[in-house]
C-alpha cells in the first residue's frame, strides 16, 4: 500500500545512455513533483505537474523530459546521461499545490 512508489530503486548505467524513472502515487493527489538530491544531500526541485499540466520547470537541461500520462503517474526520462547526472531523484505528490508533499523512497542513479 505504498503511497508514492518509484522504480527502479537503483539505476547504474553508462554515460551517453538514455534511461527512465517511473513514479506512481495512489493517494489521489493532483500534483506531482521531481526533485534531485546531489552528493551533498542538497534537494532541488526539477519539475512539477498539476492535473497533468507542467507548472514548474526549473533550469534543467532539456535532456530531462517529464511525462505525465495521467494524474497518478509522473515519469522522468533522461537522454544522453552525463556524469553530473549521478544523484538521488525523488518523486513527490500533494493534494494540490498548497498541501504538504509526500515523497517516494528515491532512485539512486549512478553514471559510470
Amino acid at each position, binding site marked *: 500500500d505504498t503511497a*508514492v512508489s518509484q522504480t527502479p530503486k537503483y539505476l547504474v548505467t553508462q554515460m551517453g545512455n538514455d534511461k527512465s524513472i517511473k513514479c506512481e502515487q495512489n493517494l489521489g493527489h493532483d*500534483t506531482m*513533483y521531481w*526533485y534531485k538530491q546531489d552528493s*551533498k*544531500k*542538497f*534537494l*532541488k*526541485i526539477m519539475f*512539477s505537474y*498539476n492535473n497533468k499540466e507542467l*507548472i*514548474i520547470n526549473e533550469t534543467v537541461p532539456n535532456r530531462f523530459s517529464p511525462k505525465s500520462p495521467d494524474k497518478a503517474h509522473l515519469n522522468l526520462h533522461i537522454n544522453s546521461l552525463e556524469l553530473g547526472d549521478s544523484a538521488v531523484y*525523488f518523486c*513527490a505528490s*500533494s493534494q*494540490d*499545490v*498548497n498541501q*504538504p*508533499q*509526500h*515523497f*517516494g*523512497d*528515491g532512485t539512486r542513479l549512478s553514471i559510470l
Partner: protein
Amino acid sequence: AQSVTQPDIHITVSEGASLELRCNYSYGATPYLFWYVQSPGQGLQLLLKYFSGDTLVQGIKGFEAEFKRSQSSFNLRKPSVHWSDAAEYFCAVAQHGSSNTGKLIFGQGTTLQVKP
C-alpha cells in the same frame, strides 16, 4: 529570492537529551514552513508544517517547531531524543497564495547523530 538556511550541518546529542535544530528563512511574506526527516536510504517524511495560526506546531514523533516572524526562524525541538531519531533533517519553505506552485525550497540539511 526565497532561501532557507540551516546553520548546523552536523549535531550530536546524547540519548535522552533535548534537541533544537535551527532554521532561518528569507521570504517577503509569511511562507508555508515544513520540517522533513530523511533516514538513510529512505525518502523524506513530513514531521510538521506551519501554514498559519498558532506559532507553536506539534508534529509526529514528539517533535514541535516554533515560528518566529521577528527572527524569520522555524526551529525544530524535541525534549528527549531517542536513538532512532538519528537522521537527516530538512527545513523547507514554500510560497503560498495565488502565486503558489508548490515549489519547496530546502535548507542544506542537518545531520543528527545520537550518542548512547
